[in-house]
């Protein structure tokens, strides 16, 4: 299971270049990392919800997917992939597929397609326990339609439907805790992760969690932070600086829940103040205006509370 980049680099690439995501987008980095956790000999059927990832990776007749791929709509990646998985079971049972053929079923959805409009379909698929992995690439807004707020958008972020106005300063609500909602489905494996810089072990955390999710039987869920330089407003080279600071401030805690048992994957020696996360991104610029200090305090309080809660639930101390 140990992550050896050299060995992983020998595997065939499953997402080709030539897709149309923006330069520096976090989503394809996440997708590549998840798919790299597949055994080279295993076939995959991949589904994507409508969103930046889907419209950019499969514009007729150009598909960036080297595996079988299906998109059908925005809110139904969970249901769509569950149908493909049911087909696999039936076809195996009827001898329509070779007995030794392994196909893994993986769905990707943005935060909009997962936390919001696709939540019902996802919940249904997870509850039914199809042998599949659902991966949310969370960039904290509906990026494809022009950076509108979602229930994953952090509090006070400036988006096009929660603009930082003079009387309402950005999004008013706290993020929904989707990973907890998924854990409440009693799934065999649920994890929160991100692609990280070398000081955090690079892609080890994401790779190992993806591997566990793919090769644990049943419905598994990954919530992966996938920064969007356009919506977050930072310079493209800094992708992994964004995720590094998100985990060092505990804005995006890394953990996994195996059969209900929660383990924090990373506990920073010294938790950094949220300012460091906020100041790196243009969408939070207004919280640094004079008189808005209370916003930063509020965000810090929320982060502290969720982090404390996770520390208390951490079963591997």
């Amino acid at each position: 299971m140990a992550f050896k980049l050299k060995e992983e680099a020998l595997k065939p690439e499953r997402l080709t270049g030539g897709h149309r995501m923006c330069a520096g987008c976090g989503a394809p980095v996440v997708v590549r990392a998840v798919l790299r956790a597949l055994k080279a000999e295993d076939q995959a059927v991949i589904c994507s919800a409508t969103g930046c990832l889907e419209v950019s990776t499969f514009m007729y007749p150009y598909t960036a997917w080297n595996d079988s791929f299906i998109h059908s709509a925005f809110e139904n990646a969970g249901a769509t992939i569950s149908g493909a998985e049911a087909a696999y079971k039936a076809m195996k049972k009827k001898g329509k597929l070779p007995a030794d053929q392994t196909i893994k079923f993986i769905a990707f959805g943005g935060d909009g397609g997962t936390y919001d409009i696709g939540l019902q379909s996802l919940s249904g698929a997870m509850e039914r326990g199809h042998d599949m992995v659902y991966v949310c690439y969370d960039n904290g807004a509906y990026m494809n339609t022009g950076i509108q707020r979602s229930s994953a958008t952090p509090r006070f972020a400036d988006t096009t439907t929660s603009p930082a106005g003079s009387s309402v300063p950005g999004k008013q609500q706290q993020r929904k805790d989707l990973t907890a909602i998924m854990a409440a489905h009693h799934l065999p494996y649920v994890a929160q992760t991100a692609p990280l810089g070398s000081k955090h072990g690079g892609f080890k955390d994401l790779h190992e969690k993806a591997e566990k999710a793919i090769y644990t039987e049943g419905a598994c869920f990954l919530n992966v932070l996938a920064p969007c330089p356009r919506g977050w407003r930072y310079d493209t080279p800094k992708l992994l600086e964004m995720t590094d600071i998100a985990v060092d401030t505990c804005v995006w805690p890394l953990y996994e829940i195996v059969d209900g048992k929660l383990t924090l994957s990373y506990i920073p020696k010294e938790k950094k103040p949220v300012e460091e996360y906020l100041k790196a991104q243009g969408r939070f610029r207004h919280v640094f205006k004079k008189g808005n200090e209370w916003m930063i305090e509020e965000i810090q309080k929320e982060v502290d509370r969720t982090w404390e809660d996770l520390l208390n639930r951490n079963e591997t101390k």
Partner: protein
Amino acid sequence: MKKINWDLNNISWKDITPGGIVEVPGSASDTITGEWRSDKPIWDKDKCKQCLICFPVCPDSSINVSEGKMVGIDYDHCKGCGICANQCPFGAIEMVREG
């Protein structure tokens, strides 16, 4: 070599693939996204220590790796985001303005 070899501009409705199905995996590699680039990563082979850190960080699968070794950059698809240069611990990738 192009993966899709039909006449894209003149394909008849009779010949187009039903429902938009594409039976050519990875056909997007025909699309040259290198043209989007304003900065270009230049790899310095001599400085490179073959740690491969640049390989997974690329959103465009544009770090060419062969037999476990970094061998160059796929300029057909690299969009010049600079993540590889930012993450290379040995300063072996430098971003320069596209000429």
